[in-house]
């Protein structure tokens, strides 16, 4: 019924993976790559699938080379990295809070990053780079505040969720206030940022994100086994030798960093962190936090949504956040219909 793949070496090493999860991950990676190539080919200056591949390999014309490697490739890479970070961050938060709705965009992290960005846009009239720094700072401060406020001899899932909701409500009010303080030009800029968009993202956003992911993703995956055990309750995982508070704190810090960095790069693209882990889970049908599938799902989802935002509504190019927002709404309704009876929410 469930098949697993086990690899053992004579030296006592053994690795194990769920076959279905492996297939899902490979399929998602392929889908993400395909969507990326299509997305690179999409725009005012369309390029065919084959030409995109050729240009990426370094054999394109000068014009194609500029459009692909300087304009569109960094945008797609930012999309992939942001999606992956949000997917992984969401999976971590949902697993820690033991709730499919316990994702960073519900718990106030995105709103906190938004506050940071709004302060820079409205009060300081800062540049795009400064907005990024502001958002990063806002997200980190909010994450720290939620963790400290939820801390009472350890952080428990339910308290984390409720404190996050409280913080989220306050920060949303602050954001509303900052919007009213802005002049109309700044307000427009702020609202576009608040929706989440990949427009105009370049290599300067790619490198920091990539570096962060390169550090955090392995760190998270090393601790994933402890997180798996923690799904059975703190007592059981404690008894199995998991250092529960340490693992939880470490993973929360990682999740906050991932989410804040992703938000700083692309704005608070809503509902990717909420939906990606759930969709991945539906595909793998495996218990556990499903971290790698969630990561791949987030990347695929965001790039696909960006493509849809550019193409699906005729000439109007929408920010990607609008598409993910619609997706989130549909997802919530679907959750309502399917999961309610199971009482899993």
């Amino acid at each position, binding site marked *: 019924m469930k098949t697993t793949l086990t690899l*053992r070496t004579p030296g006592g090493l053994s690795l194990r993976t769920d076959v279905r999860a492996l297939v899902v991950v490979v399929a998602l990676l392929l889908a993400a790559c395909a969507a990326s190539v299509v997305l690179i080919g999409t725009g005012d200056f369309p390029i065919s699938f084959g030409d995109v591949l050729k240009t990426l390999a370094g054999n394109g014309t000068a014009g194609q080379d500029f459009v692909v490697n300087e304009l569109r490739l960094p945008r797609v890479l930012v999309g992939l990295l942001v999606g992956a970070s949000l997917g992984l961050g969401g999976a971590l938060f949902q697993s820690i809070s033991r709730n499919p709705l316990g994702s960073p965009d519900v718990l106030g992290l995105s709103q906190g990053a938004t506050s940071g960005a709004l302060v820079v846009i409205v009060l300081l009239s800062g540049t795009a780079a400064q907005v990024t720094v502001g958002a990063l700072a806002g997200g980190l401060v909010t994450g720290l505040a939620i963790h400290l406020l939820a801390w009472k001899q350890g952080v428990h899932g339910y308290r984390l969720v409720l404190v996050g909701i409280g913080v989220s409500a306050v920060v949303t009010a602050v954001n509303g206030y900052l919007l009213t303080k802005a002049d109309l030009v700044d307000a427009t800029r702020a609202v576009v940022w608040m929706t989440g968009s990949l427009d105009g993202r370049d290599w300067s956003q790619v490198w920091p994100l990539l570096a962060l992911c390169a550090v955090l993703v392995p760190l998270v995956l090393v601790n994933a*086994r402890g997180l798996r055990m923690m799904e*059975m309750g703190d*007592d059981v995982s404690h*008894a*199995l030798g998991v250092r529960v508070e340490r693992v939880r704190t470490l993973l929360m810090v990682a999740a906050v960093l991932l989410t804040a960095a992703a938000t700083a790069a692309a704005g608070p693209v809503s509902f990717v962190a909420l939906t990606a882990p759930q969709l991945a889970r539906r595909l793998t049908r*495996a*218990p*556990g936090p499903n971290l790698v599938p969630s990561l791949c799902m987030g990347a695929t989802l965001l790039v696909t949504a960006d493509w849809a935002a550019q193409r699906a509504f005729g000439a109007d190019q929408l920010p990607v956040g609008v598409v993910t927002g619609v997706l989130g709404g549909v997802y919530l309704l679907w959750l309502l219909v399917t999961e309610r009876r199971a009482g899993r929410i």
Partner: protein
Amino acid sequence: MTPEDGRDKNPTPESDRERNTVNRLSAENLTLAYDQRVIAEQLSVEIPDSSFTVIVGPNACGKSTLLRALSRMLRPSQGRVLLDGQVIQSMPAKKVARTLGLLPQSSIAPDGITVGDLVARGRYPHQGLLRQWSAEDERVVQESMERTGVAELADRYVDELSGGQRQRVWIAMALAQQTPLLLLDEPTTYLDIQHQIDVLDLCAELHEEQGRTLVAVLHDLNHAARYATHLVALRGGRVIAEGAPNDIVTAELVREVFGLRCQIIDDPETGTPLVVPAARKARVTTTS
């Protein structure tokens, strides 16, 4: 164990004799508290090796709290818990988990997990990043499921099982941990009588066949007297009596610990003490 415990009026020959032996698990002068609420002070307990120790007492006497301290779930505000002569908190978490297992009351079966997968998670303390699933793991998991009689359920989902089956699965998970000491916090709660006996019989087998040390918190004094080889009676965070059930379970002790007037007769099946509460009339006269 401390002289000021005031337990000298109760006969505790067993524990007196064991005082000099070094047992693997013991607690010394514990003060246990949640937030500001102190549950127990100056509490000392020895768990005799290879015993089936059962902790009994009225509600809120601190029996589960004691078990949490013994299994390092709760850090004592004073005193220490010793495992193999070392303070349990100072030992590496996985090392403790290879010596001492716990079946807590609050356990959550993750959504959509199969019996086999859940039991396999008990191997966590024996595994590492590069040692994820050895042949040994596979063998132990299979063996644990067979011992607890859930091997044929291996591919079923845990949420589909009955309460009694589910408890067996959790016990199988704890067994897969392969610990010489196993602690169980009220393993029979929420089970009907036949499953209660079923689970306790299983515990007794695990104790007898493999010489494993078992420590359980039980609600039912008669179950405790029947299955325990060593009984610890708590009241108000203090040990009132400890020893073999035949030696310590007396009408006087039951009255002191539970505030219940009763007769003690021999269990017709096992010869262990059986508590028969006094009839209503008799009780009314004693309470006034």
